[in-house]
């Protein structure tokens, strides 16, 4: 019973335990689910925290299910990125779950909503399956499971606009996964393996590999909502229940991005030409501009935040371009990792705070927020703090991420990305302060509804996390470098 064995056996548990709770929630639906959900959350967070702890101490952990060797068996692998994302998922997931538990029961009770908890835990299991997958096909299964549970969660309110958004999301997800699967089929035909580790050694610059990578990239970009394939995202994230929006924006879109990242730096790095990488980055820059612009002009608060996600995902692709074609990939890796983490924390906080503000005002329009600063200081403060991180102003995770990416861009002489990074910050400031400015306006009346204090606390904690992670970034970044497939990156 060595430490390594204990650590590795946490890997399957990280997927199985949420699944068990999904099944429990399915077979024993309750009107008051607190006593069912809380133990689930505690066990989930504990396992992921343990996984993170062991990874940070022992390095990359692997586990082969049922001792069936690859390629027929299923292998799980926890590197720094995987276990950090798993921990982040459990923390943000728990925050969203608490937000949901504090929601008054009669507020939006419909028959369909008893599906919330099964789908919620399934989403958690699926995310962990993606973070910890060691081969392309397990990633596919995780991604499909993720897509199905996410679509289910979007549709759960049963309103017509939610159903339309869910259907649009479903089609995008299905199309994206098929393109990905096709790419995987080609890679398997060419190399006879699906494990990332062996593909990295085998991949050669031939036509079939290029076609496969093109299909995989297109499919995953569609799922990550990279501009201009982003049209499905704002409605899906904007109309869902608030905790669902937070989960989708903070984590679900990251799953396909992390897959793309693993494939690009693992398999593609030697065969992708710099101009292709720059092209992806250009789309990212387009996302920053377009998403920011849309967020500036949208009348509804949650749609504003959803468009902000489109823009923030653009930073990830700019980071990927720097990683694949710059001369300082280690800085780009750090920046990219920090952006993943900081955006997840900040965006979930922002969605939860927005939901609170909307519930208090009774309207989803930005202009109706006037006077809310006086009555909802905590929610607004959480919104502001998360905005600081999204804008990339110090001190925050967003700033530290931008700083590292900026350093990487300048070191590579790629000035255009520096301009995109800084210009994107200005656009973000525009839409964040649009909300804050509206809330500072003198109100016309005191027609605010009371909201649970727990809502404020949850969003404040997440926002504070987004700030703090930027000030003490060195520690988490050291873990995130464990097992990173980038030259020059050592923990």
């Amino acid at each position, binding site marked *: 019973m060595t430490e390594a064995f204990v650590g590795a056996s946490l890997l399957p548990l990280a997927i199985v335990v949420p699944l068990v709770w999904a099944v429990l929630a399915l077979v024993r639906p309750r009107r008051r689910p607190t006593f069912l959900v809380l133990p689930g959350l505690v066990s989930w967070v504990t396992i992921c925290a343990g996984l993170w702890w062991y990874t940070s101490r022992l390095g990359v952990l692997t586990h082969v299910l049922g001792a069936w060797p690859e390629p027929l068996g299923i292998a799980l692998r926890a590197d720094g990125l995987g276990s950090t994302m798993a921990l982040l998922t459990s923390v943000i997931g728990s925050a969203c779950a608490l937000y949901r538990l504090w929601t008054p029961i009669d507020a939006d009770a419909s028959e369909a909503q008893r599906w919330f908890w099964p789908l919620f835990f399934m989403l958690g299991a699926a995310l962990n399956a993606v973070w910890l997958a060691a081969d392309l096909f397990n990633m596919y299964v995780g991604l499909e499971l993720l897509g199905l549970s996410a679509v289910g969660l979007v549709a759960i309110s049963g309103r017509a606009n939610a159903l339309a958004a869910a259907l649009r999301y479903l089609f995008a997800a299905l199309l994206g996964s098929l393109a990905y699967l096709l790419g995987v089929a080609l890679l398997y035909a060419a190399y006879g393996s699906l494990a990332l580790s062996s593909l990295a050694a085998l991949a050669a610059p031939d036509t079939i590999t290029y076609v496969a990578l093109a299909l995989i990239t297109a499919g995953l970009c569609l799922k990550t909502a990279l501009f201009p394939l982003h049209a499905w995202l704002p409605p899906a994230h904007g109309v869902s229940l608030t905790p669902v929006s937070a989960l989708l924006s903070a984590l679900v879109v990251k799953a396909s991005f992390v897959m793309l990242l693993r494939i690009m730096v693992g398999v593609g790095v030697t065969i992708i030409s710099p101009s292709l990488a720059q092209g992806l980055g250009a789309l990212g820059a387009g996302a920053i501009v377009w998403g920011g612009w849309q967020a500036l002009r949208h009348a509804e608060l949650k749609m504003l935040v959803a468009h902000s996600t489109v823009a923030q995902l653009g930073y990830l692709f700019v980071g990927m371009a720097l990683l694949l074609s710059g001369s300082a990939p280690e800085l780009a890796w750090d920046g990219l990792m920090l952006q993943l983490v900081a955006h997840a924390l900040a965006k979930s906080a922002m969605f939860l705070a927005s939901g609170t503000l909307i519930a208090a005002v009774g309207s989803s329009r930005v202009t109706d927020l006037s006077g809310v*600063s006086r009555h909802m200081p905590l929610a607004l403060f959480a919104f502001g703090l998360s905005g600081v991180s999204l804008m990339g*102003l*110090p001190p925050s995770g967003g700033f*530290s991420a931008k700083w590292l990416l900026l*350093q990487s861009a300048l*070191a590579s002489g790629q000035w255009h990305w520096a301009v995109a990074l800084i210009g994107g910050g200005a656009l973000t400031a525009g839409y964040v302060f649009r909300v*804050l400015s509206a809330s500072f306006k*003198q109100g016309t009346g005191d027609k605010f509804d009371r909201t649970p204090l727990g809502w404020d606390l949850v969003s404040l904690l997440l926002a504070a996390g987004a700030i703090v992670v930027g000030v*003490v970034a060195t520690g988490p*970044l050291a873990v995130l470098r464990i097992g990173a497939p980038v030259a020059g990156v050592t923990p």
Partner: protein
Amino acid sequence: MTQVALPAWVLASSLLPAVIIFLLPETTRALRTSLNLGAAVLKVALVALMTWRVAQGSLTQVRFEMVPGADFLLRADPMACLFAGLSAILWLFTTIYAIGYLEGAPNRSRFFGFFSLCVASTMGVALAGNLITFLLFYELLTLSTYPLVVHRGSAKALAAGRVYLTYTIGGGAALLLGVALLHGLVGDIEFREMGSLRDMSETSWPMLRIAFGLLIAGLGVKAALVPLHGWLPQAMVAPAPVSALLHAVAVVKAGAFGIVRVVYDVYGIDFARDLQLLLPLTVIASITILWGSLRALWQDDLKRRLAFSTVSQVSYIALGISLFGPIGTVGGLVHLLHQGIMKVTLFYCAGNFAETLGVHRISDLDGAGRRMPLTSIAFSIGAFGMIGVPPLAGFVSKWYLGLGALDAGMPWVVGVLVLSSLLNAAYFLPILHRLWFRPQVAPWPEERTFGRWETSGWLLLPPVVTAVFTVGAGLLASFAFSPLQWAILIARREYLP
């Protein structure tokens, strides 16, 4: 142990109160007031202790790695003590003033929370030991002042807030790019006396010049260098204590202090001269001085006239530090303190006229000297100081600036100083004339009475004390720990032997 952590304690003495105040309910007035005052007094004590230690030659610092390759570094050096001392003392009086000013106003928890946060950021700016830590607190200062500028929530306040943000976020972007550029060239840049870039090879000089331009552009926004000054007159819609904060304690000072740090402790004054960066700065500062004074002449709104006066006066600092030679340096540094003390007095008084009599316009001030003698005396002292009448604080600054200009071989700068002093007289003396020598013609727009004194004691004490400081800083300039002596101490350490 306490010695090492002293800069951290200075920062915490306003950061922690900020957090607590945010959480206090609106109605807990007594607790909030005592917390505010207690923290302010404690901070003055801590800064005094820190200054004492620094004077004895011990440098204390707090450091940890924030992002790989970039440290968070707080350090107490003489320059830091100069600015921290100014802010700590003025914060105490501004807190007293704000408590009186906001008596009975809504949203006080929010106001005082951000107020404390603002001072915490200013302390951070003062104590930052490297460029990235400076940047961190500089931006935090922008964020924490925005809610104060828009505090009233009126359409005008929101518009002013928008202008403020547009300028400061733009400036912040330039600053970030400049800092990132330097960081990419030489790694983590600590502030060090006489600078740390002198050994850079000549091939990197063009890049260093670009970085300098970006840094000065970013800092110039807060320091209100023409043409980046547009936000400052707009921001006068904010409540008077906030104006004091913007003009004297925190914001423009952070910009000016940043310029000092960049010229002396990043580039080094000798190296900056070799790069031919000083003359452009002198020219910009001179233009700003004259332009601000000229614009001030035409303003009828008292706070607006004072705002343009700030534009002009703060550039004396940039002027002094851009003159090569220790005498000019002393002039610039000492003016950092003197301008703060004098301008804060003027803004307190303007606030008193507005709060007590409802007077906002200069043309309505006729005869106010008789109704509010103490406030008017304080205002007059501040105004004479600004003009540079001996033996007040402003005279000391201008004297050293003039000598410094001659020393640096730039006699035309003396012309700028003389012209600007004439303009100062031209826009301040008419106000004094109205206060003292014209009879009251119309009833005060909104008069309030406060019992024994001409106005509330909370509002009266701060301007009276800072007016006394204005006299004292001039009269007692040769005593140890006077602003002048401290500036001389710093100037001695900044030039190559």
